[in-house]
């Protein structure tokens, strides 16, 4: 029982990251706008992440608790960006 509770607590505490993946369809200006809207990034920061996605194939745009990460991924997918969440090991 204690072991199970510990596992559940670890699950809750594990940090997650939100990753946006490259996609040849989404316009660079559109991706920048979405980052500004969803995360409230400055234009410079949004462009930096957009270029990271474009040039490196992915960019970690946020990290923290799972519930919030899920919400961000839902918002990003609502804008049709290729976004996923990953555990930070």
């Amino acid at each position: 029982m204690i072991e199970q509770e510990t596992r559940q607590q670890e699950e809750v505490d594990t940090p997650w990251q939100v990753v946006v993946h490259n996609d040849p369809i989404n316009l660079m200006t559109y991706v920048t706008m979405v980052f500004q809207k969803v995360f409230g990034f400055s234009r410079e920061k949004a462009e930096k992440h957009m270029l990271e996605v474009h040039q490196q194939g992915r960019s970690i745009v946020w990290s923290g608790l799972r519930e919030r990460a899920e919400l961000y991924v839902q918002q990003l997918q609502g804008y049709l960006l290729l976004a996923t969440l990953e555990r930070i090991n």
Partner: protein
Amino acid sequence: MDIRREGDTLEISELDPFLAELLRQIPDSTKPEGAEAAHARLFCLPADPAEKELCAEWKLYVEPELRRLFHSATETVLTDLQALNGQSKPFANCTLRIPTKNAEAWLNALNQARLVIASKYGFSEGELGDHYRSPIGSRRDLSLFQINFYGFLQEFILHEMQK
């Protein structure tokens, strides 16, 4: 074709019948039915498939929300497009007015359409970057033109909304 902002409206005038028809096709082009790749792109997994519980919950609770969001954007576009029907004589140029409050819905529907068309035809990154391919000699060429035309509209809407 002329495109500009007039107060709270984005106006696309001098639309020739061919481009007007491409605009009319936006709602239908957002439908991924019959193309598994297109459906998978619109409703992609939120995490590695190994995260089985997370992916299953996503499909159950989040996917219907996304479906509603996409449908709502497409319905808004469909309503705005109705102004194109019966507006003028056949083969005459026409004008489309998009209220700026609907700009996000247009961006979303145009993106859905571009993603679905690209998935259905499996365009390579090289083809998608080739904006000057001509003439249009096949359905595939026309679809690529459609993707680029919708992308041009997205750029215009974004540019005007950021002013």
